[in-house]
């Protein structure tokens, strides 16, 4: 309970006593590049395989001759947009970017770099954390869009080279009964997840106490708590927006 209160105060401190706009622009750009580079390869790789595997497995399960093969394309598309791209990517993102944010801030805390900022009269929460959160809010939805496209490409590759269905059927399925809201929903999810990962990881790192061991623990805790909150938020959002 104390932690929840401290987290809320921490979020409040983001907007107190800020530096000039230009300072932030540079910091945010740096963070964007860092976050993007840090996760793009892993996210891309996982997405391609996720798409390919879900195509193969859907095809494997659909043996009923009454159901046209094109349904596979439709299932893979909805699965990817609604769940795989935003949520599974978020879990990977929490592992990669969340642990790096917590480790970075935790190290700065125990080596007194955060105290150094504070003594200079700089609000360390807004100076260090706000750029990370903003950059994550920008970059994560882009990563989700990339992951979605790559997953569907992965599905196409499986169709083309896996030999489980005709590529033409796959494409027909992709276009069938398409509901544009699912894309909106995926983007809403990705913004919420991005905020959760960045703010929770930053909070865990920022209040690290002790030494190198505690920095490691803070990173682990950041990933665990981020993942749990992603799953909870996923459920709540589905309940609120889809049902």
């Amino acid at each position, binding site marked *: 309970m104390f932690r929840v209160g401290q987290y809320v105060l921490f979020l409040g401190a983001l907007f107190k*006593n800020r*530096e000039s706009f230009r*300072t932030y622009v540079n910091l945010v750009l740096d963070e964007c590049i860092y976050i993007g580079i840090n996760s793009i390869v892993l996210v891309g790789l996982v997405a391609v395989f996720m798409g390919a595997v879900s195509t193969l497995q859907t095809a494997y399960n659909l043996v009923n001759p009454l159901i046209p093969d094109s349904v596979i394309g439709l299932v893979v598309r909805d699965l990817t947009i609604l769940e795989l791209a935003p949520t599974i990517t978020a879990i990977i993102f929490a592992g990669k970017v969340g642990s790096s944010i917590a480790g970075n801030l935790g*190290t*700065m805390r125990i*080596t*007194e*770099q955060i*105290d*150094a900022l*504070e*003594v*200079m*009269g*700089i609000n360390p929460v807004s*100076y260090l954390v706000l750029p990370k959160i903003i950059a994550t809010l920008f970059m994560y939805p882009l990563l989700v869009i990339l992951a979605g496209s790559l997953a569907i490409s992965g599905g196409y590759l499986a169709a083309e080279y896996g030999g489980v269905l005709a590529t033409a059927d796959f494409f027909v399925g992709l276009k069938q009964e398409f509901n544009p809201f699912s894309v909106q929903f995926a983007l809403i999810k990705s913004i919420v997840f991005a905020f959760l990962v960045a703010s929770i990881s930053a909070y865990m790192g920022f209040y690290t106490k002790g030494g190198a061991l505690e920095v490691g623990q803070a990173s682990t805790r950041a990933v665990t708590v981020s993942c749990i909150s992603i799953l909870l938020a996923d459920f709540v959002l589905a309940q609120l927006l889809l049902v």
Partner: protein
Amino acid sequence: MIEIKNLYKSFDDKKVLQDINGTFMQGKTNLIIGASGSGKSVLLKNTVGLLKPDSGQILYNGRSFVDADRDTKTEIRREIGMLFQGGALFDSKNVEQNVKFPLDVLTKMPEDEKMDRVNFCLKRVSLENTNKRMPSEISGGMQKRVGIARAIVNNSKYLFCDEPNSGLDPQTSIQIDRLLQEITDEYQITTVIVTHDMNSVMEIGEYIIFICNSRKLWEGDNKDIIHSGVKELDDFVFANNMMRKFREVSF
């Protein structure tokens, strides 16, 4: 000048500082000494505002710091430079960027003026050719000197150092002590140094407060310290052989 008046600080029910008073003077190296765990760092952190005292006053040239509004606090903070125990250099920035950092965020100085100032300060701490090195690539003593350069780059009026020579060899320690004293005198800074190194005390202790069991037991300078008559202080001062010999010779 920094005045500390009736300062109290406790954590939960552990009383760390009780009724601390003292006046740190401009242009002098003021020392806070005491055994490990006696509350020196806590006193320093209260003074610079990293911790909030339970009660008491801290005056920076007459301006109250503890209950100042945000603008006054920021104004005072921008006159403060601090050297942390481990240097606390930003590890993602190189030496030059570290020293330049306070100028970047606190001033609107043009870029070339900033660089002149940075190079001047680096030269002052005898670090001329390390501008592009990263903190992880330089030695502990060099990190401390970069820390000092960063602390004085914005023409700080107040300089705080938490154990500036812990972890350094005796020679480098003395270099750092002398550097601090020279800078203090040259720019008329109010310098406050936390230390438990008797060498530093004898070398640069122009005003010393001794903290023991959460209270200030003694104040004075390095000439008086060897005949203070305070038992706890004698235990601290004459803990090592060399100081005991020194006492025998001087009496």
